[in-house]
């Protein structure tokens, strides 16, 4: 079949981040991890404690999903796909079985020498991660889910995931990346490549939930063909020590569109940098990037860069709420526009504020306690009701509002 990425990502700037070599040094992490079952188990057999943790990151093991994959520490422990419409395999298996994957999709949306993180991933002998391919014309009704769980203390988990949507297909994917609540420290490096075919639609929701000493560097690249659509939702629940994320989306086909929604909490001790770039490379492409950050004392950098190389329409909106009066927390909002084409109509807005006391008291005049009013304001700020995310996310965003409202 015709390669979906006919306009393969070209001329991607690689990043020299030698200073990060130390941060990324795997030597600081242990090889020892919990004994895992040999072979794969069905979803119902995943231990109850793990199942509970997974549910907190949007991965539900009690039905209502078209497919489930769980990666624990260094191996897949469950791979189930209940649909004829798509195939889900551990990436290592897919590479063995389908040489085409290595030829056309493996490190094509993210070049293998993009930066130190990607180089580490490319150096893996056996890739760890998932491969999903939705067949042409198939619209998968129930969401498919993957959990990347770090169950052991102080390990380095390096994953590589590839998602391919053939022409006219649709998929909703939920990826939960989390550490067990008992785990403090870890390193999670991830490369994610998505290929969205013509008229296809991929909705990818990532929920992150990390221990306080976890460092995570996701590197994502998505290529969208003609009239394809990529929606990416990212919710960071329990913030890690350090998150540096800058997903790249290449709208290479005419009429391709992308939408990002990023909802992040930065608590004391966290450094969260969530950027994102959309390359509007073809006519009539469009993008909408929305960042909502609540900072209770950590560092937060939020941004979105739109690069318009053709007639297109795009908007980036960063809003931050700084709730920490101690002066240690900070929010930096950096929306950016870069245009190479006079018909690239792009706009941006950014705002950073706090909770307005008049608004809190107005809500209290309905009988609310102060905390209830603050939570309602934060939930309104994070935009749950207006964006129509799934029920799972609503609960998690409400939790962020609670945590932020209590100033923990």
């Amino acid at each position, binding site marked *: 079949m015709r390669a979906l990425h006919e306009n393969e990502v070209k001329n991607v700037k690689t990043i020299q981040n030698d200073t990060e070599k130390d941060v990324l040094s795997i030597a600081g992490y242990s090889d020892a991890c919990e004994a895992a079952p040999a072979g794969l188990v069905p979803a119902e057999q995943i231990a109850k404690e793990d199942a509970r943790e997974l549910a907190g990151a949007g991965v539900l093991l009690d039905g209502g999903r078209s497919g489930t994959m769980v990666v624990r520490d260094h191996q897949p422990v469950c791979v189930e796909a209940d649909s004829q419409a798509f195939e889900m395999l551990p990436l290592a298996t897919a590479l063995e079985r389908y040489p085409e994957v290595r030829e056309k999709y493996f490190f094509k949306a993210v070049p293998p020498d993009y930066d130190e993180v990607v180089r580490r991933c490319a150096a893996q002998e056996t890739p760890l991660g998932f491969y999903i391919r939705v067949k042409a014309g198939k619209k998968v009704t129930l969401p498919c889910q993957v959990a990347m769980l770090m169950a052991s203390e102080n390990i380095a988990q390096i994953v590589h995931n590839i998602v391919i949507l053939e022409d006219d297909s649709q998929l909703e994917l939920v990826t939960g990346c989390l550490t067990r609540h008992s785990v403090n420290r870890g390193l999670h490096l991830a490369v994610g490549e998505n290929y969205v075919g013509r008229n296809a639609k991929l909705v990818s929701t990532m929920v992150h939930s990390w221990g306080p000493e976890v460092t995570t560097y996701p590197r994502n690249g998505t290529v969208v063909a003609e009239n394809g659509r990529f929606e990416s939702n990212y919710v960071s629940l329990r913030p890690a020590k350090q998150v540096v994320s800058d997903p790249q989306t290449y709208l290479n086909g005419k009429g391709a569109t992308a939408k990002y929604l990023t909802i992040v909490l930065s608590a004391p001790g966290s450094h969260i940098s969530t950027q994102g770039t959309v390359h509007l490379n073809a006519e009539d492409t469009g993008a909408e990037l929305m960042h909502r950050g609540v900072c209770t004392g950590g560092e937060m950098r939020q941004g979105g860069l739109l690069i318009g190389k053709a007639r297109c329409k795009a908007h980036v909106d960063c809003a931050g709420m700084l709730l920490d009066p101690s002066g240690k927390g900070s929010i930096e909002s950096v929306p950016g526009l870069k245009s190479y084409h006079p018909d690239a109509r792009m706009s941006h807005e950014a705002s950073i504020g706090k909770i307005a006391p008049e608004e809190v008291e107005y809500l209290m005049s309905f009988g609310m306690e102060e905390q209830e009013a603050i939570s309602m304001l934060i*939930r309104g700020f994070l935009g749950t009701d207006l964006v129509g995310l799934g029920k799972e996310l609503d609960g998690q965003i409400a939790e962020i509002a609670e945590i932020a409202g209590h100033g923990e």
Partner: protein
Amino acid sequence: MSQATQNILEIRDLCVEAGGKPLLDHLSLAIPEGEVHALLGQNGSGKTSLMMTIMGFTNYHVTRGQILFRGREINELNVGERARLGIAIAQQRPPTINGVTLRSVVRYALKNAPNPEAKLEELAQAAQVEPFLDRNINDGLSGGEIKRAELMQLLALSPAFAMMDEPDSGVDIEALALVGSLINRLFSPDETRPVKRKAGLIITHSGNILQHLHIDKAHIMYNGAIGCSGNPSIMLEQIAKCGYEECVRCMRTR
């Protein structure tokens, strides 16, 4: 047989300032249970400040005096606590809040009602606020729309003591009739016993609301205090005839 009429609200020698500016000056006022009073007076006389102080908004600092609700001093209670006692306010210029809809606050107000969703729909229809029920609260609404939204909130809360800041200003005849019917419903919830009313305080300039609502007593505010109290119709007639200047002259020469 006479009932002992307790005062639902009593204000004793109240002094209030905001941002260093004095707003209320030794103000005293008593409103008995079941009575609706009107607050008149020129702009800047302190009418809105009095209502906001009663509600407990923190930028209004009480420097002297007491506010008593059903005999209990409430000076130390915050806005939420006073609301839970049964005090509510329909503001003239409430804040706009992004991400919070009229539906969500009314839903909160109705959380203990027997059939909240049905009640919400019914109130929305009665107040004619359906078009903006799911918009950011007070966002881009006209003066009349804000009044209806605020009244819908009061109806949902069903407070023991409701305050309204100029519900009849800038409203045309038709809209005034709607506002009037909503206010009557609020103060006389039992249609079969209209005499048994809840209590309230209404700020009005024009007195137009009196065409739709019976008011028990009117007070004219002057320089942060109550200057004169009496029969609402007579007072409004006097103000219409001779303006507030005559009231000021009268109060000064008393």
